[in-house]
């Protein structure tokens, strides 16, 4: 990796990712689906392998050498993550399976004990199902009300409706920092401030932001923040919940069993300290260590540079897409106001057909509702095609995409 230049050397970066040495039907892989999951650099794969080959042991309990090494590596990954998102301490970092589980943890452990009839949970119309369905469960279970900040035609949240948050009975604001469908960057800091004015707790879904731009939990001021390891160059199977310590300490556990206790009698148990209180059973230790390696990799490049790179590629893609007759782009259309995610449709070609035709060219895009069916309804479409960019994508990937779109038009006789 060349660190002397400000712009990313994508060709050099690609060499760090074994998957890009593969070709399918003689064509290289053009991967435009990082919003679904990112590819993994060799250093991450190696870190996972290294764990299993050298100090595979259970954590927090062994007296012997390799168990101590495993515990140290696991806890060091936790500190890396804390530092990465500027948490006050690593005790505020809980390892989960993924962002979805992190949100479920908050719903079960905090929501069920704090949000009741007459209370409100305020979400936005941009949420992924992962930050909607758990709250639907809570509203059935505890009879609380769900309310939504609407999204405007331009794909941005309607700021005049931010007043919706500021009601006395609002108990929680749940908002995604970057939309996984439209790429919209939401003003989470401002929204969290409004939530705090009415003593509501705030949860930020950072699955699409933490991998792509500098995220500082103390600057945002949120009470909870979640993200997934596998969308952050890390392995599948590990996710993160950040929670303010005083809140985590007041909450009940989520998963009961071993490792999350201090002492157990036949009828009662004393919970472990945070964050381990929330990590019942053996964690995905190797994956957490892999995520630590992913964060090392990201830090080496620098999140500011990654953000700048994505703005550049997105800007180029938006301009090129404009030149393809029949393309309809949804969302903000200003690369400075969005992550590297573009949703669009091409004439009357259904996104699935489009994705199939692009697949023949080795181009991987997403087609469907992107786990955001209420937003699709709002956009009045049943599905969109979505491309998403990351550090291993360049303008030449955009060129291949555009070529693929022109081919799709030919196939559909347009």
């Amino acid at each position, binding site marked *: 990796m060349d660190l002397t230049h400000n712009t990313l050397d994508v060709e050099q970066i690609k060499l760090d990712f074994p998957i890009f040495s593969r070709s399918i039907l003689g064509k290289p892989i053009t991967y435009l689906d990082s919003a679904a999951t990112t590819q993994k650099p060799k250093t991450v794969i190696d870190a996972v392998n290294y764990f299993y080959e050298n100090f595979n042991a259970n954590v927090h309990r062994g007296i012997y050498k390799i168990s101590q090494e495993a515990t140290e590596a696991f806890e060091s990954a936790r500190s890396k993550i804390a530092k990465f998102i500027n948490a006050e301490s690593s005790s505020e970092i809980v390892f989960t399976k993924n962002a979805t589980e992190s949100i479920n943890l908050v719903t079960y452990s905090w929501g069920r004990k704090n949000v009741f009839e007459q209370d409100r949970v305020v979400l936005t119309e941009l949420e992924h199902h992962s930050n909607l369905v758990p709250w639907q469960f809570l509203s059935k279970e505890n009879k609380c009300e769900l309310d939504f900040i609407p999204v405007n035609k331009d794909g941005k949240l309607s700021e005049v409706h931010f007043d919706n948050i500021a009601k006395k009975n609002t108990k929680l604001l749940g908002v995604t920092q970057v939309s996984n469908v439209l790429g919209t960057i939401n003003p989470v800091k401002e929204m969290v401030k409004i939530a705090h004015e009415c003593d509501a707790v705030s949860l930020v879904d950072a699955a699409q932001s933490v991998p792509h731009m500098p995220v500082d939990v103390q600057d945002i001021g949120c009470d909870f923040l979640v993200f997934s390891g596998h969308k952050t160059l890390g392995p599948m199977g590990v996710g993160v919940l950040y929670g303010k310590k005083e809140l985590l300490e007041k909450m009940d556990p989520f998963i009961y069993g071993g490792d999350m206790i201090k002492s157990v009698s036949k009828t009662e148990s004393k919970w472990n300290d945070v964050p381990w209180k929330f990590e019942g059973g053996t964690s995905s230790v190797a994956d957490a260590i892999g995520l630590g390696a992913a964060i090392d990799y990201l830090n080496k490049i620098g999140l500011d540079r990654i953000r700048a790179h994505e703005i550049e590629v997105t800007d180029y893609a938006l301009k090129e897409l404009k030149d393809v007759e029949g393309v309809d782009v949804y969302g903000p259309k200003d690369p400075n106001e969005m992550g590297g995610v573009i949703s669009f449709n091409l004439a009357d*070609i259904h996104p699935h057909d489009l994705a*199939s035709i692009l697949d023949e060219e080795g181009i991987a895009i997403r087609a469907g509702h992107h786990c955001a069916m209420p937003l699709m309804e709002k956009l009045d479409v049943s599905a969109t095609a979505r491309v998403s960019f990351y550090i291993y994508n360049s303008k030449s990937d955009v060129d291949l995409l555009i070529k693929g779109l022109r081919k799709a038009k030919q196939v559909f006789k347009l």
Partner: protein
Amino acid sequence: MSSEIYRDKILESYRHPKNYGSIDDAQIKVKESNPLCGDDMEMHLKLDADNKVSDIKFTGRGCAISIASASMLTELVKGRSLEELRSMDKQELLQKLGIDSLQLNPVRIKCALLSLKTLKVGVVSHLGQQLSAEEVNVLENEE
């Protein structure tokens, strides 16, 4: 898969599907969806005195393959009995579509079979029955 499957016949049926619409006094009204992609389909069947299909119409949102498949399926089944519909082989529909199941990846085969699944679900529930797990697997291309 190959984009060769998007033959004129499929594109024509996608853009101008046959039997698109609804039948108010249909005896069978059924809705199915593919939860993976959000595509949905509704089918209405009118039966004559012998319990044979006298008319069939569908509406739906979906890709070229699923809409073309529904259009062709509605053309195939007029005059057939409910028992014939229940035992209808998916290969008959795929053949009509000109799709070789080896040519299309398994996810897209599901698009091609959504119409047949909708039809069969409607027929068996009209008969007061349910599709067996095996029948569902066949229609979801998971046999």
